[in-house]
């Protein structure tokens, strides 16, 4: 089987509603940022889910999952759940997992939703509040 490659979807042209993805097989740092209001959510997230499955079964090194999503829709939230479940399973089997979720400090709705993911999956997610201007590039 071929070696797991980095998964990069750099949304430089700012396609509508599409997040950027930087998953590094070498460092185990996986970043998901931007907005996710995709219509073909499953199609977009399938390679990410597949990548995580391979990382957690083939590479088996520590993983830092970093989320900087400003907005995500309901169908995205299902794909996020699927990814968290993979990470939780990896952790339960001895994998080293850190999840950091950066959220706008004024966004109480998102904070509540992140807490619900923790209740749902049993995965510890570090809540990292930021001021909106800090994410501007």
């Amino acid at each position, binding site marked *: 089987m071929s070696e797991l490659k980095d998964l990069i979807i750099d949304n430089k042209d700012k396609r509508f509603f599409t997040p950027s993805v930087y998953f590094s097989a070498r460092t185990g740092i996986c970043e998901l940022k931007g907005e996710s209001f995709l*219509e073909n959510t499953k199609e977009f997230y399938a390679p990410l889910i597949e990548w995580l499955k391979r990382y957690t079964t083939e590479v088996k090194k520590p993983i830092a999952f970093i989320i900087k999503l400003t*907005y995500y*829709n*309901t169908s995205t939230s299902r794909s996020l759940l699927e990814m968290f479940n993979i990470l939780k399973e990896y952790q339960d089997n001895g994998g080293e997992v850190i999840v950091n979720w950066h959220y706008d400090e004024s966004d*109480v*709705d998102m904070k*509540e939703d992140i807490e619900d993911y923790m209740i749902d999956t049993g995965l510890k997610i570090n809540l990292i509040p930021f001021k909106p201007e800090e994410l501007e590039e």
Partner: protein
Amino acid sequence: MDKELVKNSFDIDQLGLIKQLIPENAKILLEYEGPFSKEIIRLFSLKISEFIKTNSQVYKKFFYVFIELAQNVKEYSDWRSTLEDGKNYGVGALIIGELDDRFILYIGNVVNNKDLEVLKKKCEIINSLDRESLRLFKRQQRNLIPGTNQNAHIGLIMVALTTRKKLDIDIKPIDENHSFFTLKISIQKNFKQTSN
């Protein structure tokens, strides 16, 4: 005229149906009826950032609710239209407006009466739950294997959670098998909630 171009269309004044529900003193900022394409949704989402500049929490809530509900129209409206890009979009209508104390989004589309019963029931359940139960309900629904309209129903739960209000709906019969379903959303301008 290519018959394939328009499927399942209806001879109704959607905007008229919504307009009669709008409070008299509301200032209308935007009104639209037609297919809910990705471009239209994007365009309106940019407009919303022009309308709501003062309070970022209010903007976030309004923006979020708008996207969820606009995508619901696009996906689940029973009135379908195929555009030049060859894609099939749901047709619906919306009005965005402003009152002294709140912004409003009234958004509606044609629903098949078979689906309407399920939808009504879902709204009733959502409206009967307190916040904690609603969060539990969301988690349960999110864990289900995706089925038809499943996302739409979680979307409604998310709307209730985000607006912190009961779902306010209006249903007008169109013909034997169809109705026009409108959601009346309002978000207070002075919304201020600190993190607990």
